[in-house]
């Protein structure tokens, strides 16, 4: 669909394009994190690219790998009708140096998307005007879409009522157990049981 874009990127940025593939017809380029903003600027400014719509930004966590977090961006050009997926891999095991340059100045729509990726996956964006949590509340600890964040963990703002406080027995369903609802089909992945309970 847009092999041309990949070729142009490779010609222009050379070794900063670490890998490309076009699986399922989605053209993908994996980029050196330090050139993230330069590549985005090029894709936006160059008339033959003209990527004017920021479609999506997401973080995908691979705890076993280094760098651990993959930031995935989808772009679309309304005038040219082509799409591209950009990826950058950042962060060590503890997500210490998971930092990317913010591209909010290129596409204003990236503002909320970057906040979301920060909130959910813990990637920080250098130069973002307003990097706050967006979906979770400010008191929340951790980043829920990191795979090491246990799915059954709760962080209530107001502590749950005890039976003593209520003065009567509280019949309440307990939260999902560690492996509850998990199909047998998971293999080669850290299972929920491997994740340390807090």
């Amino acid at each position: 669909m847009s092999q041309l874009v990949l070729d142009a990127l490779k010609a222009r940025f050379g070794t900063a394009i670490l890998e490309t593939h076009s699986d399922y017809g989605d053209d993908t380029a994996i980029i050196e994190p330090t050139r993230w903003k330069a590549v985005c600027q090029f894709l936006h400014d160059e008339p033959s690219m003209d990527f004017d719509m920021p479609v999506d930004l997401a973080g995908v966590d691979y705890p076993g790998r280094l760098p651990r977090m993959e930031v995935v961006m989808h772009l679309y050009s309304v005038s040219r009708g082509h799409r591209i997926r950009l990826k950058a891999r950042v962060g060590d095991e503890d997500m210490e140096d998971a930092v990317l340059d913010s591209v909010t100045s290129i596409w204003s729509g990236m503002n909320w998307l970057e906040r979301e990726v920060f909130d959910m996956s813990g990637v920080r964006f250098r130069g973002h005007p307003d990097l706050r949590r967006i979906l979770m509340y400010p008191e929340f600890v951790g980043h829920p879409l990191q795979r090491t964040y246990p799915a059954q963990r709760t962080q209530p703002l107001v502590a749950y009522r005890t039976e003593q406080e209520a003065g009567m027995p509280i019949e309440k369903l307990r939260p999902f157990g560690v492996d509850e609802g998990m199909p047998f089909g998971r293999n080669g992945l850290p299972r929920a049981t491997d994740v340390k309970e807090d």
Partner: protein
Amino acid sequence: MEPLDEVEEGELELPAEPMHLNMGPSHPATHGTVRIVLELSGETILKSDVQVGYLHRGFEKMCERGTWAQVFPYVDRLNYVSPMLNNVGYALAVEKMCGLVVPDRCQWYRMALGELARISDHLTCDGAMAMELGAFTPFLWFIKAREMVWDILEEETGARMTHSFGRIGGMASPPTPDFKAQCRAALPTIVELVEEGEKMLLKNRIFLDRLENVAPISGKDATHLGWTGPCLRAAGVAYDIRKSHPYLKYDEVDFDVPVGTNGDTLDRFLVRLAEIRQSRRIIEQSLDRMADDGPVNCDDPRVLLPNKLDVYTTIEATIQHFKLIMEGAKVPKGECYSYTEGGNGELGYYIVSDGSGTPYRIRIRPPCFQIVGGLSKLLEGRMLSDIVPTFGSLNMIGGECDH
């Protein structure tokens, strides 16, 4: 005491500090739970901060726990006004990875159901918007029309709202024998009701004054914000995925893409009304071309449950059924992004599979999120009373926006 008009304007000591006002999180005029923190000078909005997330339910985290098929009920609850479009969008994403193409009959069926859902989405948005501005009667008519759509969907799926009707490689059941007749009977009445409501509203001076030239946005700005769907088209950009990148059978049907000129609130309202009529055209063509019999589901035992009778009588089918339920259908390793035109715009699913029966990562790209992200820009410099129509015209759906 000297009369007021003799006082020089500069001498009057009025409080000059901007006032802060919290709107929401549950304000009767916001259909979703959203909080808008406003900085006001008099009635003019200087700055606004839109805060979402009150309906965050951890959709993406939940998807990583079950099988691929168990995601369907979750996607229903994203845009709960048009769940069928979400269902079909997700089914298409997984089918793209599995390399499946559903039979023609199913494609037409999905299109007809999807467009019905789109009608219900647009009716709700426009109706609620009119109601928030005080026009209650058109709202009731629009909701009456929506009831007719939901009656059809209930007949087909068994549920009015959250159908969970999509399946990987097909649909939960084939169309009922009365489906075509029911649609053909209901569609003219729906359009009639819409026309009646439209007449009430579009000749009403008060209604028009509150919409016209309120919160306009240029096509360029809207694109840069990542807007899609009716809101982008109202700004004059004719980007409709059904036309630009057709999926299912949209390239074989005849329909137009209505666009606005100013990108103001009135345009967003009108584009939705115009799309209802286009959806009607699509449904009618789909019904004409949908075969009355033939398979609806793919013939692929990797993803589809075997026939119930076989499950009870043969060991192979029993095992197959067991494996599909307990382990889930295996989706090949890889990643893909699949996008469809949802009620509010581009509904994308970015899915990553590690080859097992459980999704490694499902990322939804809800159209609302970015549209609401542009709200604070729209409100800057507007009056306080403009918030209600502007917010209404964006059609924020809490479940979708907050993931």
